[in-house]
């Protein structure tokens, strides 16, 4: 039998939707103009760019299209927001708060700011996977310039109370940024309702290509561009605009919003079915975060007494793509900083599994996973020298029968 291909790693990336590809395709060879050119070809590209910007701006609730910059992806958006806002708002130094479980695209620029003399607080989430307003309040200082907390966590899928956190930031005289790469089109994302001054978005999480993102910067927000040159994007992001990809991003956002009403409940059902199926069939497994508002398309579980990479590889062998927060998958010796930040012990974090899915995931995919997964865990646990000792019901070790 041919190995099926079940892709449960949509939080890592998604395929380009054929409708997105179709919208983009005229802009590679036919409508190839440079939006800065005055001639007809340039004007055509400019029109496409402007329309895409208007569409994205309207989708995220921006007041004005000029508040939306197109970037080379979520990582650039995060870097531009942190470095760009802080450098301009407090050129001589100050204090920045970022949550401890941000994506590395926020954590690394925060480290860079630290290297330049800024103070940075890495605010820990609580065990529920959320940053609490009172914890942020306690972290604020008189010289806090910027607070950055992600909207939806890319590993455990928890949604952060951005509107409340933005209130705290503003009351403390700071600006507020949120990385919304995982939430755009999946839950409601409205920059005005959230009250943020800046927000980052990524294309390839929502069926647009890799290498395109957007950054919302509210009018009047101090901002120093990362890239200077020809002055494109209102002098905030130089470089000839990637018109085809911008058009693709706009189309991708439109489709997400058109389909969200039916898609979000469908995905939530798949998520709950996965979580229930796993925890029922596999002893000593549980959802990493028990309750609260979560992304509909991420199911995160910890499976005790099994190492994540070995689960990932065995699933891969059966045609199922997933990801894990174990140390061994990351290339470092530490398990995921996200799991450690919510108080998950390292020996448990090593056994974490993230299953993320989307538009092209079917119930049959979930059933296939649930059919195969329990035996994988059982096999790996039977190979472990410590499973019975650590988690066995009798508390005594039962030697596994030798086999050749």
């Amino acid at each position, binding site marked *: 039998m041919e190995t099926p291909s079940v892709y449960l790693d949509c939080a890592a990336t998604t395929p380009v939707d054929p409708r997105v590809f179709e919208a983009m395709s005229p802009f590679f060879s036919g409508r190839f103009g440079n939006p800065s050119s005055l001639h007809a070809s340039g004007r055509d590209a400019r029109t496409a760019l402007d329309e895409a910007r208007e569409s994205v701006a309207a989708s995220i609730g921006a007041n004005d299209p000029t508040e939306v910059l197109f970037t080379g992806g979520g990582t650039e958006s995060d870097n531009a927001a942190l470095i760009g806002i802080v450098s301009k708002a407090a050129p001589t130094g100050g204090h920045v708060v970022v949550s401890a479980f941000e994506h590395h695209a926020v954590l690394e620029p925060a480290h860079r700011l630290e290297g330049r003399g800024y103070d940075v607080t890495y605010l820990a989430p609580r065990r529920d996977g959320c940053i609490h307003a009172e914890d942020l309040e306690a972290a604020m200082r008189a010289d806090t310039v910027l607070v950055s907390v992600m909207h939806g966590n890319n590993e455990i899928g928890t949604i952060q109370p951005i509107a409340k956190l933005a209130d705290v930031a503003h009351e403390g005289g700071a600006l507020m940024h949120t990385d919304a790469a995982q939430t755009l089109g999946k839950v409601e994302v409205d920059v005005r309702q959230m009250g943020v001054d800046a927000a980052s978005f990524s294309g390839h999480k929502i069926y647009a290509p890799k290498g395109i993102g957007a950054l919302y910067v509210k009018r009047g927000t101090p901002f120093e561009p990362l890239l200077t040159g020809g002055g494109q994007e209102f002098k905030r992001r130089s470089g000839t605009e990637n018109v085809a990809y911008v058009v693709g991003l706009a189309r991708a956002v439109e489709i997400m919003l058109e389909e969200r009403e039916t898609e979000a409940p469908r995905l939530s059902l798949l998520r709950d079915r996965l979580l229930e199926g796993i925890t029922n069939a596999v002893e000593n497994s549980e959802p990493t975060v028990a309750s609260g508002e979560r992304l509909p398309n991420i199911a995160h579980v910890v499976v005790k*007494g*099994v*190492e*994540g*990479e*070995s689960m990932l*590889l*065995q699933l891969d*062998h059966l045609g199922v793509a997933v990801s894990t927060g*174990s*140390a*061994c*998958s990351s*290339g*470092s*010796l530490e*398990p995921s900083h996200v799991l450690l930040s919510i108080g998950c*012990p*390292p*020996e448990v974090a*090593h056994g974490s599994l993230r299953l993320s899915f989307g538009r092209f995931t079917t119930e049959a995919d979930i059933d296939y996973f649930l059919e195969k997964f329990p035996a994988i865990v059982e096999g*790996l646990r039977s*190979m*472990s*020298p*410590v*499973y019975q000792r*650590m988690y066995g019901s009798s508390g005594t070790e039962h*030697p*596994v*029968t*030798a*086999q*050749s």
Partner: protein
Amino acid sequence: MYSPKVMEHFNNPRNVGVVENADGVGEVGNPVCGDVMKISIRVAEDRIADIRFQTLGCGAAIATSSIITEMARGMSLEEAAGITKKDIADALDGLPPQKMHCSVLAADGLRAAIEDYRKRDSRLRV
């Protein structure tokens, strides 16, 4: 990132389990780091007559455990104790740099089992 040989050993690990009435048992690593290896051996005429492993760990940890049981079976204790992390990595057609510690763990596990055997053996002689 893994060689086909690593994947082959990961997917079909050899000599999984525990040797009954083992002459030596070595356990190294700990769950906090994510890897635990336990190697048990039976010794006859100063050679490894039987060897089995149990491992909690990543693909490389399981593959290195599996291959070291194949390498060590039939070896004299001295030869087996001399197996290096490089020998193990070479036998698997290489390991990614960040996974070299797994081969260290396998070599340590085997040495610990041999050590355990020698300790028991010397007690018997007294």
